[in-house]
């Protein structure tokens, strides 16, 4: 249960950073977003943790009024352990501190999450759309997304039966 040990360590180091889950459904660490950059630096540099590899950043829209999640999968190449971190963000005006300078790979990961969910990573040096055209409107992987009828005169929804 590496997640629990790491959560305890973080709680002593950064009081208030860990959100205590009353009935944990999945094995992960819930964090608040305000100290996230410091926590991330600690996770990378602490000799007992050494999470030197950020493997994935995922956005999750949980639907309705629930906050959206940003999920980080961290792995330690030297100590061979891994954790998952989840940070809830508000659905209206979702922002979260960027960790692009801590793990360099986070640059493209964060741009992709921004592209699909519209979550703004504050402090990112170049937050543009990654996959979609730059003038695309809306955030396609949100639950309330509606497919546009046309894009630059091309019909988007199905036209043949």
């Amino acid at each position, binding site marked *: 249960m590496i997640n629990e040990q790491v959560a305890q360590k973080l709680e002593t180091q950064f009081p208030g950073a860990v959100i205590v889950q009353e009935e944990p459904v999945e094995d992960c660490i819930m964090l608040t977003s305000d100290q996230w950059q410091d926590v991330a630096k600690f996770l990378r540099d602490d000799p007992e943790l050494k999470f030197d590899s950020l493997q994935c950043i995922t956005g999750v829209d949980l639907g309705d009024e629930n906050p959206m999640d940003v999920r980080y999968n961290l792995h330690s190449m030297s100590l061979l352990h891994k954790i998952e971190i989840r940070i809830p963000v508000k659905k209206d005006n979702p922002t979260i501190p960027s960790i692009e300078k801590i793990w360099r790979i986070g640059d493209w990961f964060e741009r992709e999450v921004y592209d699909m969910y519209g979550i703004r990573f504050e402090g990112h040096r170049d937050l543009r759309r990654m996959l979609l*055209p730059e003038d695309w409107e809306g955030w396609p992987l949100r639950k309330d*997304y509606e497919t546009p009828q046309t894009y*630059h005169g*091309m019909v*988007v*929804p*199905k*036209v043949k039966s």
Partner: protein
Amino acid sequence: MGYLEHKFEDNIIVTKLDKLLSWARSTSPWYFQFGLACCAIEMMAAAASRHDLERIGMMPRSSPRQADVMIVAGTVSIKMAERVKRLYDQMADPKYVIAMGSCATSGGPYWQHGYHVLKGVDLIIPVDVYIPGCPPRPESLIEGLIKLQEKIRGERPLTKEKDA
């Protein structure tokens, strides 16, 4: 000249100029080397040694200016559709388009819910031959190309009526 070499006396061969032109066109339709998704892998397989597209005169060209046939091999995303249209416009006449695979013909697996996929490349450029399959095997692609060659051979580029 191969097997025709030294077989003729001094001679005159009579044919229609039209027919000669369309025959010449049909036997060397160079295709635009350009792939969008997994269909491109099959197109590469068709061009490689086992199937060898050069047997039927098909040669990949990397510039739209030199190509006669555009094989739209793969999923046409809406971001790519504008580029596809531009590349088609850059090709010199006469030009032909093959929609390879179900994505290029109708949107394929993305036909209903894909917000980012164009539902058939024929919405932006005219298509001559559709090849079904997901992705089609090289044999299907070659069948489609032979169909296209038959179509070109039937054309009469000089006479006033089309396809006499």
